[in-house]
């Protein structure tokens, strides 16, 4: 089975600066593999190991996504090889454009059975790229995937949805977006990082890919913080820990949280 993992080189949320207004500033954050994408790497590796397949990493974006550091960061996490489309034209590309470029790259890679991705990126967090990609490819696309195994001629996929979980049989080719907690991804060790430097990297030229011209561009008219999050700011008397715990449990019950 040939599996492509689509991932994003995105700001590391550990470096985020939260202003007193509640706004999150990622402009000074150092880049890293987007927070939830290593889950997709891990799912792909396990599936490939179980079926004797290959895992190809795929990322698209501006020129800064292709550095020795970014290559090693991805390749040390269970990929066999890497395909990169880095072009100044993609610097601030929106999700639709990214998805069309990913689709063209998936076609260029060829004979792909499955594309895995994280649910959403850490910075944009709109969660639309994987399913737009599926649409552009004309493949089946499923989000909220919490487990995937190989079965005769296809995949068995578990999905975590608000109403509960479902297990479905999925024919390939398909695009799956994994939940952030589907598996615990591996931490790259020294040998993984050394090995990463020896793995092949292919740089695809955007101009040579068959990508439709970008459609409409978005203009942001207004932004606002999410409503809610009202705090009751209740302080419990902590002189007796057991008493404070009992009060807390009582308050949580009353609020319907327990």
């Amino acid at each position, binding site marked *: 089975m040939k599996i492509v993992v689509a991932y994003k080189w995105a700001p590391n949320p*550990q470096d985020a600066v939260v202003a007193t207004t509640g706004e999150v500033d990622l402009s*000074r954050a150092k880049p890293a593999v987007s927070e939830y994408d290593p889950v997709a790497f891990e799912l792909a590796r396990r599936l490939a190991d179980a079926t004797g397949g290959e895992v190809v990493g795929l990322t698209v974006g501006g020129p800064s996504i292709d550095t020795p550091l970014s290559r090693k960061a991805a390749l040390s996490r269970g990929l066999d090889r890497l395909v990169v489309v880095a072009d100044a034209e993609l610097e601030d590309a929106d999700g639709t454009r990214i998805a069309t470029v990913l689709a063209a790259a998936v076609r260029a890679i060829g004979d792909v059975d499955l594309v895995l991705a994280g649910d959403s990126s850490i910075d944009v967090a709109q969660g639309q790229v994987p399913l737009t990609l599926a649409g552009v490819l004309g493949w089946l696309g499923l989000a909220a995937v919490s487990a995937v195994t190989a079965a005769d001629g296809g995949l068995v996929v578990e999905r975590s949805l608000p109403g509960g979980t479902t297990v479905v049989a999925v024919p390939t080719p398909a695009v799956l977006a994994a939940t952030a907690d589907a598996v615990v991804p591996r931490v*790259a*060790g020294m040998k993984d*990082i*050394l090995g990463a430097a020896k793995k092949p990297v292919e740089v695809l030229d955007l101009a040579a890919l068959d990508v439709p011209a970008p459609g409409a561009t978005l203009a942001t008219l207004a932004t606002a913080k999410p409503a809610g999050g009202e705090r009751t700011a209740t302080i419990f008397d902590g002189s007796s820990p057991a008493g404070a715990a009992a009060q807390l449990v009582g308050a949580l019950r009353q609020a319907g949280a327990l």
Partner: protein
Amino acid sequence: MTAEATEPDFDVIVVGAGPAGSVTAYLLAQQGHSVVLIERGEAPGAKNLSGGVLYGRVLDEVFPGFAEEAPVERRITRHVTTFLTGDSSVSVDYAGRPLAEPVNAVTVLRAKFDAWLAERAEEAGVFLMPGVRVDELLREEGPAGPQVVGVRAGDDELRARVVVAADGVNSFLARSAGLRSKPPEHHLAVGVKAVISLPRTVIEDRFAVTGDEGAAHAIVGDCTLGIGGGGFLYTNTDSLSVGVVLRLDDLLKHGRTAAEVFDHYLAHPVLAPYLRGGEMVEYGSHLVAEGGLEMLGSVVTGGMVVVGEAAGLTINSGLTVRGMDLAIGSAVAAARGIGEAIAADDVTATGLSAYRRHLDDSFVVKDLRTYERAPSFLERDRMYGAYGELAAGIFHDVFAMDGTPRKHLVTVAREAFKRSPLRLRDVISDGWAGVRAL
């Protein structure tokens, strides 16, 4: 053990991508050695407390003209030293263009600056390995005694001919190689530091600097609530680095927390106007080794050398904290020494002692000698309270026009001195110690 397992993976393993580690790695790669640079942070600089004044002379030797290319914030052209009491301050302000050309001191933000240094190393062929914390040294019995042969991180081992411990003030590697015991508390200080963002024009107006010029303020006295140490305030391009460095033993003795002292410092009427309206974008706390030459332990053992703050290389003169330039100076000496040891095919403690010789000949140890007595000088409590009171008292009497007849300055000084708890004997002793130490 198989032959393959004992074959070194690299000529040199450098642990820690701070200034000491990145420069050592860079220079060794330039000599043609295979070098891996291991850093526990996800990216170099990520874990390092930001902000500081870099005395740039030595880095300019490694990267000529670095100030033009590296992410430096401002060139320091103005040094202000201030003695504070609860409600007054006395400052000495030295501003001079000669300080800017050639570059004497620049401010840097470590998240950017460390990343830049590590990139230079990577360009020179160093294998950069971020996100890996070294857990252990690999040691074996060699013909010349115990020899460090590599490192372990998690389940993986890497072997090299030489390991460079550049892992900073708490150097776990130097301690586990038996090169240092845990330093006594009076050789340690705790630094609390914040970065406060302000528009660049506001900074230029408040500090009376223009363009890429900047100011460095050193502050002693009431700002530390009488605890041994001092405060600093440095200008970056569009932020200020502000902090205190406190002697750990004195902090414990006063029963204060470093955060308390820091809050007092930020709110001090002499400091607050500089910071007004700024937003704190970063806050951190870190140990500083401030024992000068006394802290410089043994820097060489079989298969391993120690550089930078891991070797105790800092100078805290009370007016300036220096560590980055000494770290870089030790890196230059280490790269030379290691290169010679590898060329002579002797990486035992004897072969690597070439590093110690180069270090002794460099400005690093010479400056440590010059400031040898600074730490014990700065342990004198009077430095942090009574002198500020005395100076403020003198200037108060000079400038306060309260209707009483003016007195000659000497009389003013004598009277202020009488009110002060300081005794002449102490002042002479401190003066002498200060002259010798600084």
